[in-house]
Every structure is written in C-alpha cells, then in structure tokens.
C-alpha cells in the first residue's frame, strides 16, 4: 500500500525539520527547497537519504537535482 500524498508530506516535514530546523508546517507542496526553504545542496543529500529510508524509494543523484519543490519529491516517491 503506497503512502498517500498527505502521509509523504508529513514525513518530509518531519525529515526537513530534523535536518534543518525549519518548522514542518513550512514544508508545503509548492515550496522550493533552495529558493523558499533556503536548504543547501549538502542538506538536500541528507534529506534524500532520509526520505529513502522513510519511504523506500531510492532517489538517484541524477534525479535529485531535478527535484526542485516539495511536490516534486512527493511525486517522485509516489511513482
């Protein structure tokens, strides 16, 4: 049973908060990790690895750079 969008969003919010200290409530689908949430490339790697552990979806490095927004990551995990 795949996780719903809401479940993934909640999980990502928790991961982003753990890694960067940004409140989970600010992690909303339209937000850009770099431009809106001010997350750097090293932290993005951490978030991707944590997301793999949480949702079991591997995010290859060449895909990671295309995942600009929270919604992009949710879609990637769902697919």
């Amino acid at each position: 049973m795949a996780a719903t969008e809401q479940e993934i969003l909640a999980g990502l919010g928790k991961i982003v908060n753990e890694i960067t200290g940004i409140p989970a409530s600010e992690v909303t689908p339209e937000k850009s990790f770099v431009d809106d949430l001010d997350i750097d490339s090293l932290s993005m790697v951490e978030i991707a690895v944590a997301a793999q552990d949480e949702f079991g979806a591997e995010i290859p490095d060449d895909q990671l750079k295309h995942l600009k927004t929270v919604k992009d990551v949710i879609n990637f995990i769902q697919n």
Partner: protein
Amino acid sequence: MSTNRVRVVVTGLGTTTPLGGDVASTWAALLDGRSGIRTLTEDWVDTVPAKFAGVAAVDPGEVLPRPEARRLDRYEQFALIAARQAWQDAGAPEVEPTRLGVVVGSGIGGINTILQAYDTYREKGWNRLSPYTVPMLMPNGAAGWISIDLGAQAGTHAAVSACATGAESIGQAIEMIRSGRADVVVAGGSEAAIHPLNMASFAAMRAMSTRNDEPHRASRPFDKGRDGFVLGEGAGIIVLESEAHAKARGAKIYAVAAGVGITSDGHHISAPEPTGIGGKTAMLTAIADAGLSAADVRHVNAHATSTPVGDEIEARAIREALTGSPLVTSTKSMTGHLLGGAGGIESVFTILALSERIVPATANLDDPADGLDVDIVRGEPRKLPDGQLAAINNSFGFGGHNVAVAFTTA
C-alpha cells in the same frame, strides 16, 4: 619599544571547559580550586590505562540547536559556542566584514567524526555518510563555521601546532591586526579528543597519568608525584581588536594583547628540548615584542601539563627569562589539558588574572619538585599588585612549538 605600531586589545572572552559552560562559571571554579576531572563511564575505559578525563561541564548538544549540532564535529561545537560567547561579551561589535578575521585551530581536529564515519563507511557504504563528513573532520572547520556565523571576510585561518594551537592562533591574530589586515579578529583554540583511540595513543607514549583511584588529584603540575597529563576538552576564544577600533565604539577593554613570541625546538617530535631554551626565547621574544622588560612580567600561566619532564624544564625557562618574581600557576591542574584548546582557555585565564588582579592556585601541588625556584601559587589564589602589570601565557606543543603571549593591564 615601537611607538607607531597598532595596539591590540582584548574586548571579549568565551570558554566552555570541564569546569563550566562559560567564562564566569569556569573562573569561579578555578578560584575555588575545584577539579573538572572525573572517572569516565564509557564501555571502552576498560581498554585503556587512563580511565578519567576532563569532560566538558556543559554538553554542547544542550547549547546548540539540534540541526546545527548534527553538522558539526564536537570540537567545532565547542568552538562555535565559545566564539559566540566572546562575540556577545565584546558587545557584538559593528565591523566591516572585510575588516573582521578569524584564527581558530585545533590540535587534532574532527577525530570523532573521522572514526565514526569510517565505521559507517565500512558497515553501510559510502552513500550512508553524512554529506557534512568532510567539513566536520577538517581542522579548519571550526574557523570556517565561525567566519560564517559572524560574516568574517578579512581572512580565516586555522593554526595547527598541537598543544600550542590556541596561543599561536592568538599570536597570529595580534599580527593580523598589527599588519592592517583586520580591525577585529576572533581567535583561540578548541579540542574534543576524549576518544579511546586518543587515550590509547597518548598512553602508548606513556604521556598520561594513570592515577585512576584519584582522578581529581591526577593533574598535579610541578608536584613530585606527577605521572602524566590528564586529557580535557573544550574551547577558549577571545575577541581581539585594534585599540583605536575598540575605543571608537566605547568597548570594555580587558587587557592589551601586547606581544607574542614564537620559537621551535628543532630537537624532538614530542620531548621538550632539555635546557628549555625554546620556551625561554619565546618568553623573551614576547617581552621584547611587547616593549616590556623581563621584570615587568608578574604572572605566568604555565604550560605545565603534569608530565615528569616538561614541568621542570619550563620552570627553568621561566626562572631564566623573567626577573620580576612572577606568580606562576598551572590551571591544567583543574581543567586537565585541552591540547589545542589549552592556549585559548589559558589566555582567557591570564587576561582575567590581570583584569581581576588575582592568580588561581595550582591544585594538587602538595610536594613541589626539587629545585623549581619559581614562585608557584598553591593553596589559595594570590593577589596581584596594583599598577601597570604584564603577564604571559605559555603554550608548548608536540612538534617542538613554543608560544608565549604577553598581555598587559588595560
């Protein structure tokens, strides 16, 4: 005495040590003669001969927000905490970013990160390593993070000279301001080396005390019963500033960072040169650099680590270099030896001794070694006289580094 040179003053102090999480608590503990050394409780203590250390009184993880702490090695955590304290203490000076520098080093660097990351790599593979592994293990990492925190753009440096690191950093900062490269420099040293590999490696050199039944009495510089140093952890960082810059903003001035002397033994990788000429020359150079005479120095915070060889050689160097009967103390008797952090915290203590005119006693000095012939403060702290005074912080390191920093009353 050079009269046209930029004078450098100290306007902020920060420490986190085995005695306290800040300057006030550490200094109060020193004047009380308290020990920051305790028995370690980790599983690995059974594998090493010395089973005690000076663990930081306040865990840095309790001070820093978790997202920040997790991307910093412990030595970087201590450094950032001490640097922020010093910066606040200095009144968070307004300074052009291009006129603000950082000189903060470590003797060993991020060794906890190196060893933990190697385990992760072997057990789980490269892609499970934190992407912050390299910035956490590099010995210039603390300096880099502090420069980011303060927006310093005049140059960021990391001296690496083992146990002389903290003092050498302060010496470099003095020269950075004098040379006109910066108006304000944040400088000092940090260390977080209480790890079984370090405890084992120092034990392999037969350098550590093994007084396991009395940890608080194990660090006993200048005492006949001393049997090695006691490892401590933490950081000491100060804000140095050109006198003109400090006065223009009405800053509180603790002391003048008047001079620095740096020599090298060129003799042995770890053993001190037996005549003490390197340490003596460092002190004399610092005095000359400060425009002082040998009789002006009324206090020395000695490097004295409680090893059988080093303390007596340093006493001889002090005796030969300084003619003003300085009050000598080794605060390592209470903090343990912070390696690269030592010169940082001990410069803070030297500055406070001048500004408060009181010298903490050397703890555990029950039976002074024969023939020291220097006035070591023991039992109770002793007052320094009124008037213009000078004091020296000595720091010596494996590799043959000798650094003396001279401070004078404000």
